[in-house]
């Protein structure tokens, strides 16, 4: 019987993945932190203005409207951008398997070589999502603690006794669906990138850049669609939600796994 999958070898592969790319992972985590700080202190300016204000100055009505509005989605989307750096990690992993003879000949089966980067990517995306969740919780609580009462009072004075607080306002946490859809987007992108990289026989820098631009373009288009969805409610059925989408993703995952496994089988160095 052919031995195609072994848990202890998979563990070795995942340890290899971790030790090879932990620096990239740290960079991603640091970038998320920096973006969260920059977005909240510089782009929105609410916290920055609060820190720079004179002691007696209170919240303005414009800021109160900004706080309950949904425009933070743009900044919050940015926090997911560092996850795109999984693409260079996948590139490096595949390049290593496809160009280093000693690595190519190590006793890993095609299934193990397929699952190592996929599980590694899932782990990276998961940990970064947890980091974003913690940062989002911290900042949202800060906004609530510093501004909620004042904002409600000012809005009531302005005639809005029951103001509509947007789903993506500064006072609300990210909904779970946002994490799921972002996670799903990056995971699908990772699978497509892996198939693309494995399909190209020689991994030149230009091809990588082409792939990067293509995937970046898809990401930006998706980002734009998300922005329109949440602000103008132009699309009735949200992207990446519901059972049909879930079934579609499972199908995509299975097909991708088989394609990637097959492409690894073909590899010669």
């Amino acid at each position, binding site marked *: 019987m*052919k031995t195609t999958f072994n848990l202890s070898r998979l563990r070795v592969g995942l340890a290899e993945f971790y*030790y*090879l790319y932990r620096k990239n992972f740290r960079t991603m985590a640091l970038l998320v932190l920096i973006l969260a700080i920059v977005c909240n202190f510089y782009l929105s300016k609410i916290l920055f203005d609060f820190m720079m204000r004179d002691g007696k100055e209170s919240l303005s009505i414009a800021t109160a409207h900004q706080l309950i509005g949904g425009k933070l989605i743009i900044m919050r989307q940015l926090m997911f951008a560092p996850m795109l750096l999984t693409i260079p990690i996948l590139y490096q992993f595949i390049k290593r398997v496809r160009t280093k003879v*000693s690595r190519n*000949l190590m006793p890993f*089966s095609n299934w193990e070589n397929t699952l190592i980067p996929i599980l590694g990517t899932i782990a990276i995306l998961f940990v970064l999502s947890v980091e974003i969740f913690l940062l989002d919780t911290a900042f949202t609580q800060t906004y609530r603690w510093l501004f909620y009462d004042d904002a409600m009072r000012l809005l009531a004075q302005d005639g809005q006794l029951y103001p509509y607080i947007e789903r993506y306002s500064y006072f609300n946490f990210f909904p779970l669906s946002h994490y799921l859809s972002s996670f799903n987007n990056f995971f699908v992108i990772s699978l497509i990138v892996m198939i693309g990289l494995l399909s190209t026989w020689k991994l030149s820098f230009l091809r990588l850049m082409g792939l990067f631009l293509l995937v970046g373009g898809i990401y930006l288009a998706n980002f734009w669609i998300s922005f329109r969805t949440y602000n103008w409610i132009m699309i009735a059925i949200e992207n990446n939600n519901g059972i049909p989408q879930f079934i579609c993703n499972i199908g995509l995952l299975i097909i991708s796994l088989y394609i990637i496994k097959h492409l690894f089988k073909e590899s*010669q160095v």
Partner: protein
Amino acid sequence: MISAKQICFGYKKEDQVLNGLSLDLEHPGIYGLLGKNGTGKTTLLKLLAGSLFPDQGQVYIDSISTQERHISSLQQVYYLAERTESPDWPARRLGNIYGKLYPNFDQTQYLHYLNVFEVNPDIGNKSLSMGQQKKVEISFALATQVPYLFMDEPTNGLDILSKKQFRKLISQYTSEQQILIISTHQFREIDRIIDRLLIMDNKDLVLNQSLEVIGEQFLFSDAPSADEQLLYQDEGILGKYGLYTNPSKRISTLDIELLFTAICERPGLLKNIQNYENNF
């Protein structure tokens, strides 16, 4: 046993590197693989190890085709590349992680080899010199204790003392069941440790023989007797030193360089000699 049957291989369709090469590796020992630049030594090692697949023919490791990339086959082979390929890890971690993939890997032996080479196992690979990185890879390759170990120019980048240590480790720690092939241009570095000689020329393996049999068939001498016929003599050599037939089975010191030059310059030299232990 590793067996290659009528293998052809080319990186481009119109340019074949190997053409109809057959080889059986069944006798354990240390093989020296020699050949001119571009004759396909590295390609042959990669084909035997399963890193490349032949365009025609098949390579089998214990009756399993290398193209199947079967785990049991991969666990029996280790290929040490000419250029260092290890990740930027300390040597100890390299053994801790990759060592688990090889059933006979011995971490204690690995650390011992590193100690012989005077390499600190806790320093990152990138902080080591090229020669030291090579020593780490040689130590790892030896510690895997795989039945088939292929080394492509292993002594490149090693200083004189390290080359000595390398030879010592090879002769001391290569097991009697192991087949070790060392591809090199440095004849003198391996002539005292090899048991068998493989010589490649013209896209094929022209010699695959034990040193014992070579010694019985050729005489390297400057004092031949009347019945010993001169086969080859280097230009510019004073006296009678050369390669002779050896009808009376006299014992002489093997001169690999002379034999190799003779084979390359006189392709018909091996016509009447038992140059293959397996006649395909």
